[in-house]
């Protein structure tokens, strides 16, 4: 497989949220606004690339029996380092992304890609896979957040779209937890229909 294929696979064909159903927790929790979705996506992509890099680099050193605890230690350490360094040297970025960083430790996409890809592949394809999966995750989050922010707050990325009168009485359920589940069902259903159509067409 070429690097380009490793990269593009995560965006649509094996999109972590829509196709692998990974990372559902942040997908439901932080998609209340497009800004949050972009922030979480950027932070997760960053960590994903470096954790894939580290896991791939040490894949031959770490005994397979303790690989999962080792990956968790590597990922948690790396996330904490990023949190501390960003807080100290990039405070502006930290104040917008900071709240998402501790959440990344529990994002199963990171561990999923470490186990599913990086520990069997060389460093460069692993990095490409990390970028692709990260972008796919970001894309999925932004799609979901677009629906939730427009319906639940009348705005998109902070810009007021539907006017003051809508913002005073929005469809609040879209921004609350039940709305996240309902919208997720619609979005996943849509992608399943598309998948079926595509297969039907090929036959």
């Amino acid at each position, binding site marked *: 497989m070429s690097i380009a294929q490793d990269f593009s696979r995560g965006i649509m064909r094996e999109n972590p949220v829509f196709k692998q159903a990974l990372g559902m927790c942040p997908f439901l929790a*932080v998609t*209340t*606004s497009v800004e*949050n979705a972009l922030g979480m996506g950027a932070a997760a992509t960053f960590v994903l690339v470096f954790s894939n890099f580290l896991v791939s680099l040490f894949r031959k*050193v*770490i*005994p397979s*029996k*303790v690989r999962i*605890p*080792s990956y968790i*230690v*590597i990922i*948690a*350490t790396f996330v*904490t*380092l990023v949190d*501390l*360094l960003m*807080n*100290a*040297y990039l*405070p502006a970025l930290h104040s917008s992304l900071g*709240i998402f960083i501790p959440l990344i430790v529990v994002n199963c996409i990171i561990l999923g890609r470490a186990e599913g890809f990086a520990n069997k592949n060389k460093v460069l394809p692993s990095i490409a896979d990390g970028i692709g999966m990260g972008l796919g995750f970001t894309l999925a989050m932004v799609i979901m957040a677009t629906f*939730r*922010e427009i319906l*639940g*707050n009348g705005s998109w990325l902070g810009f007021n779209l539907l006017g003051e009168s809508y913002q*005073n*009485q*929005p469809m*609040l359920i879209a*921004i*609350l937890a039940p709305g996240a589940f309902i919208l997720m069902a619609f979005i996943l259903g849509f992608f399943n229909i598309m998948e079926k159509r595509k297969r039907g067409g090929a036959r």
Partner: protein
Amino acid sequence: MGEIIRVGSMLMLVAAIAAVALGYVNSVTSPIIAEQKEQAKLDAMIDVAGSLASGELMFDSLSVPDLANPYAEVDETLAVVSVNDSAGVELGYLFVAYGKGYSSTVQTMIAVNTAGTLTGNTVLYQQETPGLGANVSNPARFLYQFDGLNASSLLLSKDGGDLDAITGSTITSRAVTNSVRNGLDALSAAGIIPVSGGAQ
């Protein structure tokens, strides 16, 4: 047996490297982070105090006997800073109100003039629900209503006052409102600002 020791020591090595790396980076970054927090607080003080008067302002920490601390759970003392103009005339006071919201303790820096009227505020810290309670950081959604009020009029409309809570975020709005009112009450009980008439 040898296998277990080999595998176990490998895991221990990974954890040891991680611990050393974390310890080192923490020791390097923690003073910088603390300094930045101080700086952010100072910036907020200058920003909020600008609502009392324009021009050169002097800050002085105020020590008051008998000042009750309504935020004893989260901070050891209620630190009040007096704001003076360049001639030394006292214009008002700054303090930080802590209110337990939905998912965090909302910290709001408050400026109050010597007559006990609120003139400015800014949210220093909150981790409320994004899209709901987190809107408290946007002054146009809620906190703009505070300017010009005194302790007796700080009540949500649901609690019998005139303040409109953020839609879907009554807990956050109430936490901030009540924490500011408790702070003002503590100041007036200690004789720093006049007791506001009315409901209290």
